[in-house]
């Protein structure tokens, strides 16, 4: 048995792996929050509920329609993004000119409604979701056991994160988006339909959350409250990273997941609070966040 710092390597790398998994969800969710905040100036409190909806949609599709994980992975993000677009058209577009705080309160209310409806329909207990057949089992790497599904989640979320980064920082559409974030009026004057872009941006951010939800379904149990506790941690991640940079959000997400995992090995009592403690320290040393511009 290999030992590192007196800890068996299986335990250490096992927690590191869980940390990377959590980190990939933090990264996907904070990425979505950052993109939405950039365009809409709203902190989307509904994000956690939309992540939960993604997981539930995958569960329901398997249960009632017999559609497997892979179909869900493709369809669900678009489905939940569509509900997001409806929310943007119905509610969010009306409060764009108000103080930011109203956006937070409104999306908080929407999150309560969604969570409440799901709790009424499906109760509070978690529902198991099978790991897809193709990714069952795992391999022994000598120093740790690596379940295939977990490796897939990490790899795939890295791909999605960098695709998002590429789309925003390196494509023409992304340049419109960045320009509209800086100065929407001017971009409109160039004949670009900014309101539609805002709507689609919200849909995109929500889709990312739903994608994270589908990926999370086989790892955690699918339950109505799975999003609400997670979103608060993601808020802390966003505060630590600052919302100015896409790459910053991705790196911060993964890094904090890993730190949280390692804390579980060395100091388990603090594992649920470590991210908040880091947030407090970062705020004391560098109030704008690690990658943030001063506000």
């Amino acid at each position, binding site marked *: 048995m290999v030992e590192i710092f007196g800890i068996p390597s299986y335990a250490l790398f096992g927690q590191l792996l869980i940390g990377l998994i959590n980190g990939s969800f933090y990264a996907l969710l904070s990425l979505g929050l950052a993109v939405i*905040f950039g365009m809409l100036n709203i*902190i989307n409190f509904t994000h956690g509920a939309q992540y939960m909806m993604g997981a539930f949609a995958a569960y329901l599709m398997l249960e009632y329609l017999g559609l497997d994980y892979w179909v869900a992975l493709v369809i669900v993000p678009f489905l939940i993004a569509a509900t997001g677009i409806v929310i943007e058209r119905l*509610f969010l577009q*009306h*409060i764009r000119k*108000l103080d*930011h*705080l*109203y*956006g*937070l*309160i*409104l999306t*908080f*209310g*929407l*999150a*309560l*409604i*969604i*969570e*409440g*409806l799901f*709790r*009424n329909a499906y109760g509070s207990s978690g529902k198991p979701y099978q790991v897809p057949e193709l990714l069952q089992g795992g391999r022994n790497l000598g120093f740790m056991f690596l379940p295939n599904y977990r490796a897939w989640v990490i790899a795939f979320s890295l791909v999605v994160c960098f695709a998002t980064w590429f789309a925003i920082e390196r494509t023409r559409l992304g340049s419109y988006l960045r320009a509209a974030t800086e100065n929407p009026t001017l971009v409109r004057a160039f004949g670009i339909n900014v309101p539609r872009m805002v709507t689609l941006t919200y849909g995109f951010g929500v889709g990312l959350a739903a994608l994270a939800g589908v990926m999370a379904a086989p790892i955690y149990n699918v339950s109505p409250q799975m999003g*609400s*506790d997670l979103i*608060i*941690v993601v*808020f*802390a991640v*966003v*505060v630590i990273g600052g919302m100015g940079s896409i790459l910053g959000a991705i790196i911060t997400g993964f890094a904090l997941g890993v730190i949280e995992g390692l804390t579980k090995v060395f100091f388990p*009592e603090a594992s*649920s*609070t470590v991210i*908040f*403690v880091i*947030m*407090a320290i970062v*705020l*004391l040393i560098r*109030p704008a966040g690690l990658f943030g511009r001063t*506000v």
Partner: protein
Amino acid sequence: MAALADPPIVETRRDGERSLAVAFALMVALLVAAPFVVYPVFLMQALCFALFACAFNLLIGYVGLLSFGHALFFGWASYLSAHAAKIWGFPPEAAVLIGTTSGAVLGIIAGSIAIRRQGIYFAMITLALAQMMYFVALRAPFTGGEDGIQDVPRGRLFGVFDLSHEMTMYVFILVMVLAGFVFIYRIINSPFGEVLKAIRENEPRAVSLGYKTDRYKLCAFVLSATLAGLAGALKALVFQLASLTDVYWTMSGEVVLMTLVGGLGTVFGPVVGAFLIVAMENYLAQFGQWVLVIQGVIFVACVLVFRRGIVGELAHALGVKL
């Protein structure tokens, strides 16, 4: 023109003070009469939440800071005063004092971290800090985990008044809450309060006028946390219980809801909002999870069509200050 414009402003100000005095007298009269008609425990619960909401409103309404973590002060004060009364055997006045002080101390710590960022970040930071302390409460041995601290003795106030008697307890709670209410009114109408409003309206300008806005904001935050702590301590004595519900984020959300429904930045709004929401929750308790949905709907409706809140709309319709 300036000379013509001046008198009406003075006039509305005097009218405003008169309307506030009338409303205050009405509120006190209702609260004195209420326990003969309504179940006193419900009233005491609503009063504690009214004080909690007023404390929260001091921040959002007069400094423009949305704290999404006020359950931190409310819940922890409730735990500490329950612990003091039950385990240490402190008399109620000492237990309440301990709870209130813990609110102040936590307010200084959380406040000095949170005021480093503005606006939306402030809300997220307070929420995150409160969640952190929720996890601490979940793990800490003295809080009793899921069970909370039960059967907290109410004791004898100053060794004289037996608080296990429902009406004595009601009078004690009423006096404390009204004192808190008047204290907040004093704060917002003091020179200090005027500076707070200036910060709310335009912080950079307040800075350029030479005000150390961070200190003012921290001070307001600590005052708000202290009063939230007082509310939590009283609540622990009323229900003889301190539990995880009081430190969870849903509690922070509820106080936002109460203040929003009553009217942000109005003097009486939080009280009205607290009574309404507490009544609604008691009435709807039988419907279980629907409470969450209904709360959500109220949030959405308030933001979209009803931003002034009940008291705000009333004041607007009557053209007075409430």
